[in-house]
């Protein structure tokens, strides 16, 4: 893997930043130009990410270094792991942009919305390609700053309260993260990510402080990865418009946290050191607790989006669980779930948004007979729901399978029990939804919703179908090259030779 100084990483990051600034500057009136700008930026970014993917595939790692603070550079380094997350973000950003243009038809301040929307993706790209913890932190905070305006977009009292809780958690976490970062910097000096853990090479004996550093940084990541005690902001943030909760909870925010944990364990501490310090087990327990606790809470929710939110809380912890257990197979399981969960959850949020806009359906008991009225959306929702439960043809099954196999390979059999329990719980809170939609008779009058033009409905239904299609494709074609699974295996091969 030869490192080559290359402008591509910074170009990828800047594309959506410039697009965001341009869109915000355009103002409310020029709606058509904004849509064009939005879409071209999304397509351009997807192209660039694919270009980098090709480069990485034939062994070239583009690097962009920029002096930020004496002793710590802003380093953008596109290795295979970052491509996994970057490609996920690029694809889903394009799809979500289409959905958002349709969904936001009757909202105001759209210029501001799409401006921050693009900056949000810029931050995600930065996080994906961060080459060291400081760069990661810079974009991690930029993500908080860019997503907050989206959460409080409507400006209603509830939205502001949600924003306030969101900030309380994220900024609190970032303060601890920064202290941990400073401690690590004081202890081990500048630390660029090295596959297999940069700390491992230093044979540091200060185990106590290393543990403390890990806990501090893990809390910082855990806030966004919605590990249990730090997850409370996620359900309240459901007040935001649907594309925001879709992007935030499927791609940007939640995944950033999980991705951070992966980087922390894989690239900073390294699997070996993490296990040696007993942190792997601790993280695994926390993740497992989150999985179960999240699912139990999801059961109790009557509002559709809140149930999806709690399901996200539990699903994301699979990734943390995979990386915490260690071992190649579990790592593959964790990493591939990063993509699969993203695709599945975004479909469900798209459909939830469509139900709410077109039919005014927000509660679960209002879902009866929905399939008759919106067959395509219902189908997409069902595919994603079954995928989340982990039924074979869908992507969910693949990642759960690898997680289980990885756990057994490493001898952590109790993890299998957790997986089985969570699958049952998933079934418990998703199957009733599907059955209501398909089997129950439709009510004579739907609670509300507007009758938008054909274009708008298509703009909302088609993206959900695309992502549902991906869910199936990632499951069925898992074995082929270029699939997320294959990519995850290639990554794992780098980390655990």
């Amino acid at each position, binding site marked *: 893997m030869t490192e080559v100084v290359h402008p591509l990483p910074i170009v990828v990051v800047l594309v959506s930043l410039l697009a965001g600034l341009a869109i915000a500057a355009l103002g409310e009136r020029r709606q058509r130009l904004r849509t064009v700008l939005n879409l071209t930026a999304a397509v351009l970014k997807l192209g660039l990410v694919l270009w980098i993917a090709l480069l990485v595939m034939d062994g070239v790692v583009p690097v962009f270094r*920029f002096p930020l603070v004496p002793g710590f550079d802003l380093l953008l380094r596109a290795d295979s792991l970052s491509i996994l997350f970057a490609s996920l973000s690029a694809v889903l950003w394009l799809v979500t942009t289409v959905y958002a243009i349709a969904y936001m038809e009757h909202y*105001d301040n759209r210029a501001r919305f799409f401006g921050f929307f693009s900056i949000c993706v810029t931050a995600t790209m930065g996080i994906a390609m961060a080459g060291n913890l400081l760069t990661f*932190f810079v*974009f991690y905070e930029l993500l*908080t700053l860019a997503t907050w305006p989206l959460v409080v977009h409507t*400006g209603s009292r509830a939205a502001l309260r949600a924003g306030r809780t969101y900030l309380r958690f994220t900024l609190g976490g970032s303060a601890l993260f*920064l202290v941990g970062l*400073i401690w690590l910097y004081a202890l081990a000096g500048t630390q660029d990510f090295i596959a297999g853990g940069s700390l491992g090479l230093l044979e540091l004996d200060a185990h106590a402080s290393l543990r403390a550093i890990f806990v501090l940084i893990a809390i910082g990541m855990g806030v966004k990865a919605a590990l249990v005690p730090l997850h409370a902001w996620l359900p309240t943030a459901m007040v935001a418009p649907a594309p925001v909760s879709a992007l935030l909870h499927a791609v940007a925010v939640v995944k950033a946290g999980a991705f951070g944990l992966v980087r922390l364990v894989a690239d900073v501490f390294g699997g070996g050191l993490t296990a040696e310090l007993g942190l792997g087990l601790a993280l695994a327990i926390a993740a497992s607790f989150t999985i179960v606790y999240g699912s139990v809470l999801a059961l109790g929710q009557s509002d559709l989006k809140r149930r999806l939110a709690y399901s996200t809380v539990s699903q994301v912890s699979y990734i943390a669980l995979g990386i915490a257990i260690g071992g190649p197979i579990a790592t593959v399981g964790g990493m591939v779930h990063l993509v699969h969960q993203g695709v599945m959850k975004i479909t469900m949020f798209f459909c939830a948004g469509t139900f709410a806009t077109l039919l005014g359906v927000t509660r679960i008991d209002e879902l009866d007979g929905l399939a008759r009225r919106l067959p395509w959306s219902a189908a997409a929702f069902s595919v994603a729901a079954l995928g989340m439960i982990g039924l074979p043809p869908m992507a969910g099954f693949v990642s759960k399978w690898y997680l289980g196999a990885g756990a057994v390979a490493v001898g952590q059999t109790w993890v299998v029990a957790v997986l089985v329990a969570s699958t049952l719980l998933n079934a418990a809170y998703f199957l009733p939804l599907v059955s209501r939609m398909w089997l129950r008779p439709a009510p004579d009058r739907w609670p509300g919703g507007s009758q938008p033009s054909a274009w708008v409905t298509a703009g909302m239904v088609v993206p959900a179908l695309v992502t549902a299609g991906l869910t199936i494709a990632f499951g069925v074609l898992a074995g082929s090259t270029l699939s997320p699974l294959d990519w995850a295996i290639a990554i794992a091969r780098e980390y655990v030779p």
Partner: protein
Amino acid sequence: MTTEALTLLVFAPLAGALVMVVAPRRAAAPIAVLSLLTLPPALVPLTRAVRAGELVQLPLAGFAAPLGIVWRVDALAVTMLLLSVAVVLLVSLHALASFPPERESGQRFWPLWLILVSSLHALFLSADLFNLYVTLELVTLAGVALIAVRGEPAAMRAAMRYLLLGLMASLFYLLATALLYGQTGTLDLYLVGERLEAGGLTAIAVALMATGLLLKAAIVPLHVWLPAAHGKAPGPVSAVLSALVVKAALYILIRLWFWGGGGQAGEHAALLLGVLGALAILYASAAAIAQRRLKMLVAYSTLAQLGYVMLLFPLASAGAYRAVVFHVVAHGIAKAAMFLAAANLLRALGSERLQRLAGAGSRHGLDVLAFALAGVSIMGLPPSGGFVAKWLLLAAAWQERGWAWVVVISVGSLLAAVYVFRVVSLAFAQPLREPERAASAGEEQGRAQLTSVAALLLAALAIVLGLASAPLIALIDQGLPPGMLR
């Protein structure tokens, strides 16, 4: 070349002010712009010389240190000059709109403004204790006059309180200068540093001078005058007061402490200054959160941010020095932007009570964005200059095993986040249904546009400072205080 540059820095704005007093009104605007535009080119040779590691010295009237006054430019002085020129140029852009030179208000404002700029530069160049007194006095008097320039009762009361306390502070400073002169026989800061030996007398002299300077820099127990003075002053004035004038006093304190032998006052004195700083950070941030008026909130934020500068004394390491100087620059730019944005919002909404800010985001987007960007730097979140300063300060505190300082810094920036987001979230809230003021006439519209652009440019500079921090840090490292190894 550097001699002309030094002369230009001080005498160009001074000449501008003098000519503007006598010149007809029509010529006022070009004079103001011309005298300010000569400043950046004057800085180029100085920065190049300092970056080349050379200490630029200019004995005025040809008489060397103990006898005459010497202008001395090292890395710290150049950094402060760069900050001063950057802030002054952009805030003057705002002042051109809010105080049009050809109008009566402009005629009163601009001469005082240019003299303030000239005296600030004279202060940063000088290394003579009594000359620092005279320049600081001139800066304070010009500041007070500018606060009261619009003649509003509340502003005049704040100006009076600032003047009285400023004069008392100067007397304490003079007492200390007399003592130092009595002991060392010279007024030149560097010679005083060499000749001063530790002793009871030195400690008392430093204590007296520190009291005076802390009063002028409004560090917490002596901060009574600042909130009203900066809160009630017109936009551009409060911006320069918070960004530069308050810093000048701290600049002198740093010069005295590290170059002038003040450090010999001992560990406990340094610790006391640090504790005062920590007190400032916590108390003022809490007070800022409790404020109900926008500009008062920003003024209390200044008090809090000044506390960080005081942490330099207990830490006293190269890392801490680099962090604090960077913080001074980052805060200067961000706070100037914040005050300009606050002033614009105040003028647009007619009242500065925070509730009236509701829904300002949609109609006054530019000003809210400027306030938010400046807020990002004040909170010390990446990618802003404030973040780099916070990072350097935390790293330095960690190096010196100052766990308490680490906690104070972290809590301080969290509190800052509370009051910044309190304002920004109001701007995002739904507007209260009340009639929007009629859009002002075209020409006024142009002026309002210029003021918003000025605020936004400063805010953007604060963010860019975060990314382009390396050259500035290299410049600061050029002139570490004596005896402070890298």
